[in-house]
Structures are given as C-alpha cells and as structure tokens.
C-alpha cells in the first residue's frame, strides 16, 4: 500500500486576502487612506511579477521598473496620442511590454546572476533616459496627463477606481498562486536551484526563462497601468531608483519565492513610512533600522512566519536536521 501524499496547499489564504481587500473601502474613511490602499495593491502587483522572475526562477532582472514605466506611459500615450479607449490601450500596452521583454530577453537571458542584473539595470537607465530627455515623444519632466476613467459617461469615483485596481491585483494574485502551485512553479524553482539538473529532467530552461521574463514584464505593465489610472499623470519619476529599491525591499521583507511575500512586503513598505512620520527628521534612519532588523531576524521574510504551519516544531527540529546535512556534505 502506498502511503498518503502530504496535503496540498489550498486557495483559502488567497480568498481571505481578497475578501479583506474588498472590505477595505467600507472600513477606510479618508481619501488618503484609499490612495495608500491602492498603492499597496500596485506595489504588490509589481512585486509579484518580480517574485516570479527572481524569487521563483532565480533570474535577477532589475529592469522591472522600466516595464512598470512602459506600462504607465503606454497606457497614457495610447489614449492621448492615438485616441484609443482605455480597454484597447490597456491591451495594447501589455502587448508592447511583452514585445519589449522578448527583444531584451533573447540576448540578455544568456547572462546570469550579477551580469544579468547589470544588463537589465542598463535597460532601466535607457528607458529612464528616453522618458526624461525625448521631450517631444514623452513630455519630458512634465510627463503626460490623462482623463479619469469613465463608465457610462460618468467619471468613476475613488471607490470604483479602488475596485478596478483590486480586480487587477486579484487577477495577478490568482495567476501568481496558480503558477507557483503547479508544474510550472516546480519547473521554475528547478531552474533557480540547478539548471543542469532541470534540463536533465526535460525542462526547457531557455524557453521557461524567456516565458517568465515576458510574464513578469506584462505584470509590471499591469502595475504601471494601475498607477496611471490612480494618479492620472505619468512622469519620469516612475522608473527612478526609489521604485527599484521599494520593489527589492518588498520581496526581501515579505519573503523571496513565497506565495504571499509580495503582498505582506507591500503592506509594510507602503505603511511603515506613514507610521514613522512621528519621528520627524529621524524617519529615514528608523525606517532603515527596521529593514535591518527584518533582515537579521527574518532572513526569509514575513512569509516564513506565516507559511510554516508548525513554526516552533520546525525550529526545534533544526538540530537533528543539522547532523543530516553534515553527512550530506
């Protein structure tokens, strides 16, 4: 008789997060709080794309903010310059992100680790340069403004807009969760852990890397579109370093390669500075100290606390496991 296989992860936590998200507009009173909530979802979308690419597949591409900016600019420019409606602009923008990702992915994915990081960072700088300097095309520093989203001839209010952003985040969260729990997620993690062994088991490593790069670029594009929808304006600050730093902080604080790390990390990274405003001039220092404490005591992020069903038991079991590892070395 074959022993029973261990239980599979369920969809319950995903549904819990989305229900909580849907209840937020009824709990938050001020417009400022609603803006923060939308910003959390936007950063969560951006970071889920990066989590798939780096956390699960091990490809450190720092070009994600560029795709975020391309998404935001594309959505604004297709509407303003070509007069397209919001829906065709949204689809067109994602197609642009995918095409650009294929074009940079084909040559760059041959590179690994910090070489890939540097090359993709260069891509981000090029994108930023175009947004900043090609004034006739991108509007330069002043950027491009768009009209608010409308439904049936009327402008959609803040709550309506929140649900549009939540809907996008829900779609990305469900996609992220489906992928990491499926054979695709296993193949991604296999590539991250050992490309040679992955190939020996029949995983087409090059194809998978390119697919995930394109997917994460499209997801970053979705985040960019959400940003444009909420801020009604795009400018070169979209792909400045603070976006990259925020994204990296989110995945590290939340937990790299975890199911809910990007969402937990986004909550912390968006809310922490708000909580810390009381410190006045010391805010940045206290914020930095918080991040250091996170890295020291929770190297696998907040998710490592939550996703382990038996955290204490796992902690206690570390000693005998250590001896097993020594034997393996």
């Amino acid at each position, binding site marked *: 008789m*074959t*022993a*029973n*296989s*261990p239980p*599979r992860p369920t969809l319950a936590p995903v549904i819990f997060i989305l229900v909580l998200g849907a209840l937020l507009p009824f709990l938050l009173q001020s417009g400022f709080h609603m803006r923060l909530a939308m910003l959390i979802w936007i950063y969560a979308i951006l970071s889920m794309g990066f989590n798939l690419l780096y956390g699960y597949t091990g490809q450190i591409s720092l070009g994600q903010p560029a795709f975020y900016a391309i998404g935001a600019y594309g959505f604004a420019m297709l509407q303003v310059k070509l007069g397209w409606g919001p829906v065709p602009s949204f689809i067109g923008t994602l197609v642009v992100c995918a095409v650009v990702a294929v074009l940079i992915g084909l040559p760059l994915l041959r590179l690994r680790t910090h070489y890939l990081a540097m090359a993709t960072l260069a891509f981000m700088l090029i994108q930023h340069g175009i947004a900043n300097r090609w004034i006739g095309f991108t509007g330069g520093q002043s950027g491009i403004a768009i009209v608010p989203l409308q439904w049936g001839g009327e402008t959609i209010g803040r709550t309506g807009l929140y649900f549009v952003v939540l809907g996008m985040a829900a779609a990305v969260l469900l*996609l992220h969760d*489906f*992928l990491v729990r*499926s*054979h*695709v997620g*296993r*193949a991604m*993690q*296999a590539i*991250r*852990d*050992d490309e*040679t*062994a*992955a*190939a*020996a*088991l*029949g*995983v*087409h*490593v090059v*194809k998978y890397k390119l*697919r*995930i790069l394109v*997917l994460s670029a499209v997801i970053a594009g979705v985040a960019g579109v959400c940003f444009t929808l909420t801020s009604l304006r795009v400018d070169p600050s979209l792909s400045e370093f603070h976006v990259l730093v925020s994204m990296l902080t989110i995945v590290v604080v939340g937990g790299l*390669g975890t199911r809910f790390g990007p969402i937990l990390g986004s909550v912390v990274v968006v809310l922490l500075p708000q909580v810390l405003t009381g410190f006045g001039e010391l805010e940045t220092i206290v914020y930095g100290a918080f991040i250091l404490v996170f890295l020291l005591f929770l190297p696998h992020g907040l998710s490592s606390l939550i996703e382990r069903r038996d955290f204490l038991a796992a902690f206690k*079991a570390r000693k005998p*496991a250590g001896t*097993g*590892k020594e*034997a*393996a070395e």
Partner: protein
Amino acid sequence: MTETILKVEGATRRFGGLVAVNAVSFEIGKGMACGLIGPNGAGKSTMFDLITGVRPVSAGDIWFKGQRMTNAPAHARSPMGMARTFQIVRLFRGLSVLENVMLGLHPRFADGIIRALLGGKARAAQETATRARAMEMLDFVGLADRADARIEEMTLGQLRLVDIARALALGPDLLMLDEPAAGLNDAETDNLGVMLERLRKQGLSMLLVEHDVDFIMNACDRIVVMDRGTKIADDVPARVRTDPKVISAYIGQRAAHAAH
C-alpha cells in the same frame, strides 16, 4: 543478439588540446547492466556528459533506441526515455522530497504557461496522477514517509535514493547512474546494491559509472574500461578483472599516487 538500447560510435571530446574522450565505441543491449570504470581522469564523467547531452561531442555519434541523438539537447533526452542521476546529488533545495520526484514527471505536462492556464480538468488530473506516481516511486525506494521533508533534512544515502526515484518516475528505457555509491557508508552501499538488483531483475537497462570496482563487478553484466580517454577493455566482469591492460591501468595509477 538482443536489441540495442544505446550505441556510442567513435565518440570524441576535445577540450582545447586535451582529448578527454578519444573515439570510444560501445553498445548497451536491452535489459543489460553495463558498467563504465577507469582510473581518475580516464574520461568516464565526460563520456557520461556526452551521452546525456550536457556537453556536445566533438566527433562521433550517440544512438538511442535506433535514433540518432548526437545533437539532441539535454532536455529532449529525458522525454525519450533516457534518465540520469548525478554524482554530486543535484536535488532542488527549494522543493520538498515529493516535489523533487514530481519534477521527474515534468515532460508529461503540456508545455507552456498559457497551456497550463487553459489546461483545466485535464491538467488538474495530470497533477493528481503525477503526485500519485511520485509517491509510488518514493515507496519503491522506501522513503514514502519522508515525502514532505526538505532536502537539507535528509542524509546522503537517502538523497541518492530520492535522485533514483526521480530518474525512475517517467519509466525510462535506460537509467544512467553517475557514481551512485560515492560517499555512501557500507550499509547504504548494500541497500543501493539491493535496489539496483531489483531494477535489473525488472529488465531495466542501466549504465553505471563507478569508482568502486567491487560494487560494479557485482552489479553489472558487462564492463567497459576507459583509460586516458580511450577504451581499453569491454567484456564480462570476470574477464575484465583479469585483463592485464586493466590491471596495469589501475596499478599504474597507484604507482603514480605512491610517487607523490
């Protein structure tokens, strides 16, 4: 004459000026357990890499089940029925034991993300079947109770068995083991020997690269001996054991070691 599973024809691999494998030819018949031995630097591991497609051949051909595989990429060989394990255990540390074995069944899934998303019930059924098959494989190697364990919690002996379970999952026609006994203690080596004997009785064709000469003499029907890139013997274990060329290759190396 039984059907040939693997045919290596004049396989050569050069690294710059060094010829690591020099025009080596041999065949493995269906259901045969073939050993590949040789002193350090004989080119065994390179030969293994050529057959599995990790490195391309400089000259020569690799035939598998009558098909020319010489230029097939590594990832295309496993779906064709060629499975391998690694000398340094290469399990995926981020995945559980069960998930590692499930990866052995990856080629059964439809390729691509969009196909996975649109897979619906067929994909879900494949996932369930894959889990069941992976559990069956873990049960075969006696590790079903460790399915949920993490890789770093396992001993080296257990990891080798997980690696074998993963390689067996697809039901390969040829199992290639790269130094499966390396680093194992006596009890673990005996356990491995019993496992391989069971597979051999089931009629699985195998290629074993091994350092441990006693282990391989018991486990194989036929032995290919390499020394400095060339094949110096290809016979049944009893005759290889007494072959003067083989003895001098091994003793020559021992003498070289002694001189250091």
